[in-house]
Every structure is written in C-alpha cells, then in structure tokens.
C-alpha cells in the first residue's frame, strides 16, 4: 500500500499536535516534554535538510550552529540571571531573558558563523566537505570545553526558562506550543523555498554546477546563501533546545550531535519536507522505549538503523509512498 506524501505530511503534523494535547488531558506532562524534544530536533534537522536534501551538501558540523544557538541563550540568560553586564569589548550590554530577542541573536550569530564556515568549506566538495565541516565542529567543541568564563565542560545552568510575552513558558504545553508554531513556520518557508526559483536552482546545483552557470547564476553564491539560512534555522533550534533543558553545554557542539541530525534526516527521507520531522519522532521514541527495555538498547537501535538503510532506501517516507527518491 502506498500513500500520497501530502497525506502523510498532514497526518504527521496532526499527530504531533494531538499527542501532547492527549498527554495534557491525561496529565502526563513528561510526554509533552518528550514531544517538544522531538519537535526541536526536527527543527534543527529541517535546517540541515535544506542544504543536505536540496543542495546535496553533507554538513557533518551542523552542531556548530546548534551549539551557537544554545550558547546565545545561555550567555544572555546567564547575564540576566546574575545581573552582570555582558562585555563585548567595544560596548557593554545587559543580558536578557526574552525569548524573541534570544532567538534573533541566535539566528544572527549562527548566520554570521555559517557565512564564514561556508565561505571556506564550499571550496571543497564530497567527502572533503563532510570532513572540513567536521573540523569546524571540533574546533568549536574544544573551544567551548575550555571556555572557563561560561562554565567550560560543566556548561551553564539557567534556573528559570526564558519568557515569551503573554505566555508562561514553564508550563510544558505552552512551551510546546511555541516550538510547534516555529516548526510549522519554518516548514512552510521550507516548502515555499523548495519550489521557488532559488530552490530549483539549488537543486540543479546539487546535480551539476554547469547547469546553473549556463543560466547566469553563480552556484557558489547559491550554496553559500543556502548554507547561511540553514545555519540560522539550526541556530534557532539550538536556542529552543537550551531553553527546553534550561541548560547548555559543549555536548551541543559534539560531532555525535552533528551525526544524529544527519541520521534523523535519513530515517525520515532525505530532501523531503517532513523527513526530518518523522525522523526526529522515530528517533526520540526509539531512544525512550528501547531504553526502557534493556541496558544494551544501543545494539537494537543499531540493528533498526541498519535495516532502515538496507531495506528502506528513501527513508520511512520513501517506504510509505513507494517512491525512493525525493526529487522525482
């Protein structure tokens, strides 16, 4: 049996909204937290999917932007919490615990860093691109570990979740609502982008640079722009993730996290709108339920992932729709 991808997409979003509401009704707040986690990871992976799925750039260092988003939240909230000034060298400012401001800072910082990483990394391609992005990830990771001012390896704890005007973010369902709304906005933008001239050109650049050049576009500029947007989205997710945990640490920069983001996309389906969302839900669910079954649950997780690769080319969406490629 195969299904139309649009139905699947709709069903996933409805399910994602219904589960926390059901949890709210049955008073299971932890389920809401779990779904929120999946939503945030999905958001980060949607960012990566933009360059990986459409642009064909396998970044093994997207944790950099996740981490920058996290630290943007951590540092701003830390200064707000301790009533100390944030010294930027040329001027001083106060911290903040307003979510929209933190999101903005997280996205701008991620975009700036993505610009420079992209500028250097996009000179390479294929496996070299994978590895140079990994190298940048490792640089940030080791930097964060020895950044004593902001906790080093211990990271930073924020005691109260940052605020959003008109909402009480400490209530799990309200914080979930914020994350879910942001995911929907980004998914909408992603789908528009996919079918825009920019998205089509990016898709063409994935296949061959020459095709783009003949119509007078510079493939480097296209890819760099996509990389920057992608970094900003993942940075936003990082800020939300830090707020979910009320905590940020160098593990947000780790190569394992970069790898997990890639895994999420592959599980769901590369280049598909909802691929990262399905991937994130499945991954969080597996992590949670397998972990309850056995101490050695990683073995089973490994076997399941292996089966997805070997028998489910095109990810879960590929399996359900019966179409292997996203670009048909």
């Amino acid at each position, binding site marked *: 049996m195969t299904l139309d991808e649009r139905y699947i997409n709709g069903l996933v979003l409805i399910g994602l909204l219904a589960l926390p509401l059901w949890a709210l009704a049955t008073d299971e707040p932890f389920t809401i937290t779990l779904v929120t986690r999946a939503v945030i990871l999905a958001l980060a992976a949607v960012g990566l999917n933009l360059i*990986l799925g459409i642009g064909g750039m*396998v970044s093994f260092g997207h944790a950099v932007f996740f981490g920058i988003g996290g630290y943007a939240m951590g540092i701003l909230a830390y200064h707000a919490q301790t009533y100390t000034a944030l010294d930027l060298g040329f001027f001083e400012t106060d911290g903040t615990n307003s979510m929209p401001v933190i999101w903005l800072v997280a996205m701008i910082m991620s975009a700036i860093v993505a610009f420079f990483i992209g500028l*250097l990394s996009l*000179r*390479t*391609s*294929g*496996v*070299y691109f*994978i*590895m*140079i992005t*990994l*190298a*940048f990830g*490792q*640089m940030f990771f*080791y*930097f964060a*570990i*020895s950044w*004593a001012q902001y906790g080093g390896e211990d990271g930073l704890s924020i005691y109260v979740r940052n605020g959003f005007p008109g909402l009480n973010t400490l209530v799990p369902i309200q914080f979930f609502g914020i994350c879910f709304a942001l995911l929907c906005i980004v998914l909408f933008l992603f789908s528009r982008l996919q079918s825009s001239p920019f998205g089509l050109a990016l898709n063409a650049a994935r296949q061959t640079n020459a095709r783009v050049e003949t119509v007078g576009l510079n493939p480097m500029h296209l890819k760099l722009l996509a990389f920057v947007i992608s970094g900003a989205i993942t940075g936003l997710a990082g800020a939300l993730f830090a707020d979910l945990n009320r905590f940020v640490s160098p593990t947000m920069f780790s*190569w394992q996290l970069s*790898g997990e983001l*890639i*895994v999420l996309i*592959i*599980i769901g389906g*590369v280049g598909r709108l909802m691929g990262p969302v399905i991937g994130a839900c499945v991954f969080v669910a597996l992590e949670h339920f397998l972990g309850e079954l056995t101490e*050695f*649950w*990683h*073995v089973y*997780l*490994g*076997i*399941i*992932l*292996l089966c*997805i*690769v*070997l028998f489910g*080319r095109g990810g879960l969406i590929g399996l359900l729709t019966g179409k292997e490629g996203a670009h048909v």
Partner: protein
Amino acid sequence: MSSILIIEQILNGLQFGVMLFLMAAGLTLIFGVMGLINLAHGSLYMVGAFAAAAVAGVTGSFFLGLIAALAAAALAGAIIEMVVIRRLYDAAHLDQVLATFALILIFSEGTRWIFGSFPLFLNIPEALSGPVSLPGGIEYPLYRLTLILIGMAVAGGLWLLIERTRIGIQIRAGENDREMIAALGVDISKLYTLVFALGAALAGLAGALVGAIQSVQVGMGEPVLILAFVVIVIGGIGSIRGAFIGALLVGLTDTLGGVFLPELFKLFMDTGAAQKSGSAIASMGIYILMGLVLIWRPTGLFGARA
C-alpha cells in the same frame, strides 16, 4: 627548553603518527578502492584491542594476543563486509554513513555486553618494557621505539604490496576503473572482501599495539577514528602516501602543539593563563591544520584533482 626534550617530543609525535597511519591506511584503502566511508573502522580498532587483551590475559603471551587481534579484526571486517557493506557500494555516501554509524552502536554495546563495563588489562611484554638510552643521552621507552619501527615496516610492506604484487595491481586498477577490472575477469567481490579485511587487520593491529600503553575500554575507537579521518583528508583520500605524510603531520602537530604552544604563550602571559589558553588552542591544532590544508588544496595534499 633543552634539545633532548625537543628530540624526545619529536619521537613521541612520530610514534603517534605511525600508529595513526595504521588506522588511516585501511580507511583510505577502503575509500579509494570501494568508495566507501567506513565509520565503523574505529570499532575494528577496539575489536583488536579487546581480542589482544582477552587472549593475552588467558595465555600470558603478548605475541599471541597480537595474532589474535589481527585475526579477530580481519574476521570481523570480512563478516561485516559480506553481511552489510557489500550492499552499500552503490548507495549514496549518506546511506553508508548511517549504516556504519549503526555498526558502531552494535559493536560498542555488544562489546560491553560480552566483556562488561570495566576496562581490560593489557600490558607491554616484559622484553620491551622500560627505557633505553639513545645516542645523545636520550632516555626513551623501548616499546614506543618498537612501535615506530613496526609502523615504518608496515608502511613499507604496504607500499611493496601495492606497487609490486598482483593484488596491488588489482587494487590500483580498482581505484581507477571498477567495471574494467571486473570485465578483465578479476573476482571483484573477493577482492573487496580481501581489501576490507586487510584494512580491518591493520586497525586491529593498531588497537592491540596502542592498547598495551593505553586503556582498553569500550568507545576507545571513536576518538582515533576522527583523527584517522583528519589524516586521510589532509593526505588526500585514497592515497597511501598521503595517509603516511598526513599521519606524521597530525602526530607531530598534536604532540608538539600541546608542548610548545603553552611555552610560547608564557612569553606574554602569566604561567597559569598561558597553560590554559595554550592547551586550549593546541587541542584545536589538528583541526586548524586540516582546515588550512583544505583551503589551500581542496582535495588534500596527494588527492586526485577534482
């Protein structure tokens, strides 16, 4: 800082480098010949170390342990090639990454299942323990000196194998044109299994040799795997010569950076701060090196021009 210390640190860097080469050689061969990104290469390193520790523990012989390491890693390599990897040669790099990532999970927790959660004991053989005096009054551990020699010998042997033997010709041909050598009647799937097992055996050998002076524990393979990837990317993927040069560069950068950067920083900082920031930069050193190399030559030092 005395010249003796500098020479000793260079030896340390060399020793680290040649051990990285053992890991990187297999990785780069597998990539060059089969176009496969094998994240599970670090698991084979771990398999080697655990096999050596288990056999040396029972028999009391380090040498038997080494043989066991080679055999176990080669066998594990051959099995995963035949069961999993073989299905991935035509798949996208992404699928290979996910599948071999899954293999890491299975190997790591599987090993913990079998051997428990505590590190195992593996020591260097009596005959190779303790320091020796080198010309110039340098005291250097004999075992580390042996590691340098073994690494050099393996590098030489690998060069001979690839440049001077029939299998080597097939391997080189496989790197250039897969269909052609299949058409010439070479059993390509047997060749692939062989190359994979060879790469695995080298990783297992490295695991056992290094395990004797480090901690034999679950997860020991991943940090080395990342370093080995850095090595082959610096050297140019698929190039054994590149892997060798890259390994030495990484080994020397990591070792010398950790020692000399803090010293350098002491010139304009107080001791404590210099130590901290010097070692912070040193820990990023090899990644900075790799970034610079790739910006300068986007396909590594000896990689095929894109």
